[in-house]
């Protein structure tokens, strides 16, 4: 990552950290004072939040003062392949959808897992036929296999409600 891009990433990171710390401070501020011990519930979270704000400032200041490396960090030739942000976003979206359908009781574990494995495996392999056959076999094996293992052997009910449970 180039230096200006790194600085922008760091600025965004620090802003998120500051917002998060502010939310923590606000929430901790409304907690009752210590009753049974000198610390109480709020002091440690507040101290950590303030420390995070100071560290964020430290990151920004150190970026301003930073010198560029004369010798670049070692890298390997596999890094030449381009990154695939679309596939990464698709993977996150499929994952969120997978957990979402189970949360909303739309699908049970078996059906959701079957679709998830085929969907994510398909996206990662660009639905190449050579990969899709083992992915489909894997999807059936783990959706039914885990379901059986947890229900019959470990006595844990995986999400089972919903259509196609």
């Amino acid at each position, binding site marked *: 990552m180039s230096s200006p891009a790194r600085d922008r990433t760091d600025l965004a*990171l620090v802003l998120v950290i500051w917002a998060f710390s502010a939310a923590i401070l606000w*929430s901790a501020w409304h907690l009752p004072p210590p009753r049974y*011990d000198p610390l109480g519930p709020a002091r440690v979270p507040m101290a950590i939040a303030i420390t995070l704000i100071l560290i964020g400032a430290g990151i920004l200041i150190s970026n301003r003062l930073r010198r560029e490396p004369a*010798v670049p960090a*070692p890298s*390997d*030739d596999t890094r030449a392949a381009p990154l695939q942000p679309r596939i990464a976003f698709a993977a996150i979206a499929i994952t969120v959808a997978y957990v979402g359908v189970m949360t909303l009781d739309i699908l049970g574990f078996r059906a959701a897992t079957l679709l*998830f494995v085929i969907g994510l495996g398909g996206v*990662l392999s660009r639905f190449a036929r050579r990969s899709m056959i083992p992915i489909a076999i894997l999807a059936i094996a783990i959706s039914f296999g885990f379901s059986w293992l947890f229900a019959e052997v470990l006595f844990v009910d995986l999400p089972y409600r919903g259509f196609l449970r």
Partner: protein
Amino acid sequence: MFGDLGSAILYIFQPWPLFFLVLGTWLGIFVGAIPGLTGGMLISLCIPLTFYMDSTMALVLMVAMYVGSVSGGLISAMLLRMPGTPSSLMTTFDGHPMAARGEAHRALSLGIGASVAGGMIAGLFLVLLSPPLSKWALQFGPWEYFTMVLMAIVLIATLSQGSLFKGLLAGFLGMMFAMPGFNDSDGQLRLTFGFTELSAGFQLLPMLLGIFVMSQVIKDALEIDRQPVPVKLTGKRKPIGWAGWRRHVPNILRSSVIGTWIGILPGVGASVSAMVAYGVAKNVSDTPEKFGTGCEEGIVASEASNNANVGGALIPLITMGIPGSPIDAILLSALIMHNIQPGPMLFLTNGDFVWALIAAYLVANVLMFFTMRYSVGLLAKVVTVDRAVLLPLIFVCCVVGAFALSNRIFDVWVVVAFGIVGFVMERAKVPLGPFVIGFVLAPLFETELRAGLQTSGSFMGLFTRPIATAFFVAAIAMLFWPAVQAWRHRGRPVTGGVDTTMD
């Protein structure tokens, strides 16, 4: 001491412990050999399954995985020029050039031999140092523990390559995520923001699965096209022999001691020891210019030290309950989930368990040696396994593992959320190791600070305790040391760092 160890080794060779040891070592090597899969990921994934196991066997399994995963990384480091685990990064610099020029068998043999030697030397330190350190730690009070946690967080932040501030950020952010839920002293609910599911705080396992597994799945999806072409294992395998090993003995001893001592430092992982040992080996070598071009000394230094780090890191975990590396933080969590409280009392209350753990570590090193020695051809094929098949399986394991913990889907969302947090942190070059250490140690930090303040009345009580004062001064010194160094070296060119975010 040696009687206890002998009994523990006999226990390890009983059918079930031996089965779990073999399974753990093999799985560890397998996962370590595949780029993108780490030991932390494997151990986090297996924690839910161990709930149904005897505690000793569960920890035997996880220690074997730990040893195997650190060792397995050398295969892909040499054959793919892609470290299977962060700790084998330094091995790529000399292992791959050596393999590329047709000496893959020799490079692998050197790496495997150095790994087992490093592991066994660290094992010796583990056996000899753990009991006296444990006795010494019995004198520790709240201030000693409080300052030790402080020192651990500062130390790992300082030694994480890249920005000190980002290391500290990760550590304190991890601590912050451990804050929501009931406050121990008065039962007051805090920082839940209206989520009743957060009454007990974020559970450890979903956090670990998110940070170590889910974030890696997203990262692997992002880098799905980065499939390297492996170097083929050609030519006959010739044993190195004593004559070949003799010239490496000083390097092995030195690197193993470096690995062990860096491992003992709270919170510092195997990649840092590999870097330090590699640097020292280069500095003392007669031919430093050969490092990075396929030099045997580089492979030996890196592999001896990263395996020694595993044994060294177990010492503070067993004796004080302070994780020596991020993976030890996962082991610490596993111990707590199995109702075993690590710390100085562990030798007194669960002596058999501790010795079984140490014996498992020693036998796992030997098993690792034979497994890698005789299955390296098979493992060389495994390193290029299709990640499109592997990643969905890994995430489903996360889902069932997190869900099975308390039978609630909220924990699966926690996995997803921490996965995204971990991925963003990695992209922003914020190391994940300090985050996990901070999360695991935060409750101890707060509890001991509270106890210290209750007994002493004020923070000044810390300075009436010599050990606590020494830890505190060490933490402050380590915090400001990078600034002092930067000031002393002002004007000199800056060298690039090595990423150790997942260590």
